[in-house]
């Protein structure tokens, strides 16, 4: 079995799972309870927060726990819209964001907010100059993803941060769900960045966990009001075992990060060099350093992506059409559309996404399977 669909989700790390179970058993109290059982749960919750803050190089009071990437994205967008609506109603994002951003923006548009969707070039990248030109006196938020989930483009976060230094009142959000542990932590936690969204299950943590970094001094209206947890900003009883497991998964992820990133990049390079030789393939991801080390998106011309996914499945190799969120609906990739990729080719796109546990041997097995599949499709595709 070869699992090459890590951008959809990752397998929980055995250590994180052990933590989940141990914390569920030994620290089952509600962190808000006054008695010693609640006290214990509170303590491990805060230790988890501290560990995550240390790993990310921020302060513990800048870390908020969420249910995942979707909640983080929704919270920053809608929370900013509510908090800053009297200062302006203009928001800026890119046309290649995850649906958690795009759909939230569309919802805000219905409420009277004005959204600019920045176009991208043929590599899925925005032009910082266009961002600068889009800024208005009533702009309240700029939300840019760190790494595109479909083809792996790294957005120019540092150049964007440089521009936004002259606009200190605008909230700058980075959706880094695909970006953590991929060697770009410095760019993500750039000093101009105000908010960062992370998702636990993308780095071998449990489902239903996420982290929102909120820079101290920035204000965000809560989406979930109630019992006042998370400094009154995100009510709901804290998911202590899952949060502790996520803290552990993050520590494991960031141990020897550089080495792990190199290993993934080497696998991707081997795959790219082989697949790109075929005249039947189109490569959407590139080998240049402004692409993530773990995502490779390409198409076998004339074959629907879904068919290719199933063909690999026969070899016990698990990949996806572009994003997991849209693959079952059969909708075409929004990123490729924004890149003006021909619609027919776009429906053939598939995505290979790696984690730090994949090996070069798996890459070789993939290549062998690819050759067989590619050969077989030539019959229907000449």
């Amino acid at each position, binding site marked *: 079995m070869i699992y090459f669909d890590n951008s959809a989700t990752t397998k929980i790390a055995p250590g994180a799972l052990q*933590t989940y179970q*141990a*914390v569920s058993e*030994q*620290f089952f109290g509600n962190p808000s309870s*006054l008695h*010693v059982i609640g*006290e*214990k749960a509170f*303590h*491990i919750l805060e*230790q*988890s927060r501290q*560990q995550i803050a240390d790993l990310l190089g921020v302060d513990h009071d800048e870390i908020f726990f969420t249910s995942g990437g979707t909640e983080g994205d929704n919270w920053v967008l809608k929370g900013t819209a509510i908090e800053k609506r009297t200062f302006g109603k203009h928001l800026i994002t890119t046309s290649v964001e995850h649906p958690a951003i795009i759909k939230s923006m569309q919802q805000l548009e219905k409420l009277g907010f004005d959204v600019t969707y920045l176009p991208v070039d043929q590599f899925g990248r925005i032009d910082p100059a266009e961002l600068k030109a889009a800024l208005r006196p009533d702009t309240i938020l700029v939300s840019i993803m760190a790494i595109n989930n479909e083809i792996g483009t790294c957005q120019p976060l540092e150049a964007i941060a440089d521009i936004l230094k002259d606009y200190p009142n605008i909230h700058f959000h980075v959706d880094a769900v695909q970006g953590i542990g991929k060697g770009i932590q410095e760019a993500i936690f750039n000093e101009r960045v105000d908010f960062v969204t992370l998702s636990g299950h993308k780095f071998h943590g449990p489902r239903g966990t996420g982290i929102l970094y909120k820079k101290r001094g920035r204000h965000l209206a809560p989406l979930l009001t109630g019992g006042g947890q998370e400094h009154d900003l995100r009510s709901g009883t804290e998911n202590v075992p899952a949060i*502790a497991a996520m*803290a*552990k998964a993050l*520590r494991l992820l960031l141990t020897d990060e550089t080495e792990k990133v190199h290993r993934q990049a080497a696998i991707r390079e081997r795959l790219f060099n082989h697949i790109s030789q075929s005249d039947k393939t189109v490569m959407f991801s590139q080998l240049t350093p402004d692409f993530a080390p773990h995502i490779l998106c390409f198409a076998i011309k004339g074959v629907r992506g879904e068919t290719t996914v199933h063909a690999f499945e026969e070899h016990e190799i698990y990949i996806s059409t572009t994003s997991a969120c849209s693959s079952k609906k059969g909708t075409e990739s929004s990123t490729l559309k924004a890149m003006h990729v021909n619609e027919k080719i776009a429906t053939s796109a598939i995505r290979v996404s790696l984690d730090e546990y994949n090996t070069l041997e798996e890459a070789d097995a993939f290549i062998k399977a690819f050759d067989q599949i590619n050969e077989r499709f030539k019959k229907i595709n000449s």
Partner: protein
Amino acid sequence: MQYTEIMVRYGELSTKGKNRNDFIGRLNGNVTKALHEYKQLRIHPKRDRMHIVLNGDDAEGVIERLRHVFGIQNFSPSIQVDRDLDSVKEMALAMMKEIGKPGMSFKVNTRRSDHNFFLDTNDMNRELGGYLSDELPELEVQMKKPDITLRVEIRQDAIYLTNQVIQGAGGLPVGSAGKGMLMLSGGIDSPVAGYLTLKRGVDIEMVHFFSPPYTSDNALNKAKELTAKLVPYVGGIKFIEVPFTEIQEEVKHSVPEGYLMTIQRRMMLRLTDQIRAKRQGLAIFNGESVGQVASQTLESMMAINDVTTTPIVRPVATMDKNEIIEIAKDIDTYELSIMPFEDCCTIFAPPAPKTRPNLDKTRFYEQRIDVDALIERSLAGIKVTEIKAGDQFLNQDEEIIAELL
């Protein structure tokens, strides 16, 4: 640096004439206790200094422990070399390289207890100083107030080199001034008072009042954890828990609100004094600071102090809150002290306690409670535990959590 010996200079005790031997003996005992984990080293207490020969034990760890021992003015880790000039030069160069930074000044200061050595002190200063300034041109030679003084001690057996003087904790060896009881609440002031008491050579035992369920286990554990912070200065401290619930309930029930606090304090002082007498203490210490709160006005002190003639020493009596906080931060008790667990000084605190209680009225209202019986029952319930270095009370899950995360 692989230090071979640590030379300890005595503090104030050097001036104490006849008592000198007592003090040195006491300090020797305290140093031995502080270093008990180190099995190889040998302690040689001499009349003017103490030499700790490490025999391979970890110098860093020993230095860390010595910093907390009262009665030490300062100390210098040193390295033993053979009695030949080349060995001295080689080691001196290595030592200077380790701590010397460009632009710093230095001098060589030689002492000779072996007058048969072929170089006299001036020769050695000149030889070694010249060599070092040739080898390390970025350092400057300076006779008056140099940044680094390299001390060379020529003894019969070997030559000893040292270039650091580490400040000790000062004060007097703990125990040399006898034993007292410290009334420990959980606030900022009483641990500081405890530290200052230890510094003057007094061995202390903690007296802590607790009133479950009005005070939580956390408040008790916090007081124990504060005690643990002071343990490194002594090696071990007895912690005495005194049950206070019944007295507080009784006082609250029987005494007018304005005198609640004053009479509670009198009860605390009576209890502490009886415990002191039983445990052969000579005085009572507390963290009162004049005028800080209602119970600490001079009138209140008079009304409370009325129950005993035992000396009550108040080490922080004349300090400003900020001065106290500064010491609390130095001895690492501040963060603990500000944890918000209610202690028995704050429960039942009346909205308007008398800041100028009248002594006669205090005595009058106190007759409404059965002082002797209450005291007797409370004393029957005291619990004494020995708190040692590294004991944890508040976050006992620390290690489990570290493993889980």
